[in-house]
């Protein structure tokens, strides 16, 4: 316990680093994921095919591999890309985006078909059906699974910590090496800091889900 108290500033910095990884790569994944989802439902076959292949590849490759590629191979290919923080953000963003895309797509699919049929029947076009009828309903359904994706992302940032980045996991590993007698306290404190983020997000997801359930 003494080690945790003595290194409190390091824990605080690590917590901030994890949060900023989460926020930045979460935002990046959201943008990229929505673009991929849009490509996947577009009427253009080549965009659809590309989005499908992209989703299948990144959903089926371990995050460790993606981050290894970012941290080791990209600097090898071109030495001018060697800011590990940016590379870790890139890896987390690219890895998370297909999960965002799938959450968005399944949310849109969750809107009853009759809604779209009714919108078409009163003469709305493709864009109008989407923006006026389908998306406003889909957004509500998308939020809970999206939060789950971000919970997973929070936990995944720990993998980035293993590749030259300072955040909660890297901090825990370093402290555990330094204070051999206090390993349990250090690791439990780290776990609690992760749980602060993930459980808060989980509660928000539950609250939203309850609200949506009433609307349905």
């Amino acid at each position, binding site marked *: 316990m003494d080690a945790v108290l003595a290194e409190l500033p390091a824990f605080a910095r690590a917590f901030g680093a994890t949060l900023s990884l989460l926020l930045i790569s979460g935002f990046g994944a959201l943008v990229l994921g929505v673009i991929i989802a849009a490509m996947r439902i577009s009427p253009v076959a080549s965009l659809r095919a590309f989005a499908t292949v992209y989703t299948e590849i990144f959903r089926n490759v*371990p*995050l460790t591999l993606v981050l290894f590629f970012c941290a080791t*191979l990209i600097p090898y290919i071109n030495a001018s890309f060697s800011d590990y923080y940016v590379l870790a953000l890139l890896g987390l963003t690219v890895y998370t985006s297909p999960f965002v895309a*799938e959450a968005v797509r399944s949310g849109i699919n969750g809107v009853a078909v009759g809604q*779209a049929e009714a919108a078409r029947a009163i003469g709305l076009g493709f864009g109008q059906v989407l923006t006026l009828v389908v998306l406003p309903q889909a957004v509500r359904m998308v939020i809970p699974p999206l939060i789950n994706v971000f919970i997973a992302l929070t936990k995944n940032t720990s993998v980035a910590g*293993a590749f030259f980045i300072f955040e909660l996991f890297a901090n825990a590993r370093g402290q555990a090496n330094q204070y051999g007698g206090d390993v349990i306290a250090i690791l439990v404190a780290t776990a609690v800091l992760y749980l602060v983020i993930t459980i808060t997000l989980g509660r928000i997801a539950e609250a939203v889900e309850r609200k949506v359930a009433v609307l349905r």
Partner: protein
Amino acid sequence: MSSVLYDAPGPKARRRSRIISVVGTLFIAAVLGAVIWVFASPRVTAGGATQPGLFDPTRWDIFLDRALWRGVGEGLAATLRAAALASVLAIAVGVLLSFLRTARSKIVRVPTTVLLEFLRGMPVLLMMLFILLVMNTGSFLAVVIALALYNGAIIGEALRAGVASLPKGQREAGLSVGLTPLRTRFLIEFPQAFRQMLPIIIAQLVVLLKDTSLGYIVGYPELLRTMMQNYGTFFGSYYLFSLFFVVFAIYLGINLLLSWLARVVARRTGNQAATNFMNGGGGIFGRRRKKDFVDLSQPEGSVALAGAASNDFSSDN
């Protein structure tokens, strides 16, 4: 292609669609081409010397070496060994936790709920480090135990959702023919829940297989570590990309196969909730549109089930 969102295209729309299609294809091809070009162009080392591009045959000649393929075999075997053991344990842990979580007594249920939150909310990697340092188990067991606990917690929640979604009559029927509550759970409810949740369990096993690669970080020589650390150092960074590519292809192949299996199982068992989710079909953008999303013929709980299941499935790890 029949979608509710737009009409069958006429000549004008078809022409426009073709133009966008060509432009889109060209754009994607340009991006991919640029990536390949960067990979293939000669590399300038920090010392100023030039090396051939990544696709140069001299970078791939190690694959003629039989010893390397033995390494691939060993690494893959280590990955599969950890994944297989962890999968079996994870299902066992999942069954156990789903029982404890639904226990009648509060003394059992509440601590289990807290434990589940704890296991699901913290990174697997941290769990591995904990087991490695605190229990001093060695890296293999650290990987296996952490994966079993984490994925067991998720499988347990899926099974619980599966039991909750069964029609109430199942339990009542079991009790009324004289089975004890525990036997009713075991013999009547559980087999059905397990079958219904099988696709989601398989999907979770894909996640488990992917996460064995975290062994790279805690020092278990699985596929990635064997190739990149052991062979990578031996052959030198000149072959880094080639080695990585092989690992990438193997992981992708195995996981695509398992995902496909999960989809087949989902279709075979005729589980509407799981099938819908896994195909992403059945909704507005689905190709084959059998039913509307909310299926009124199903029992009350099934909508909640679809939500819970899909959340577990989409939240990767």
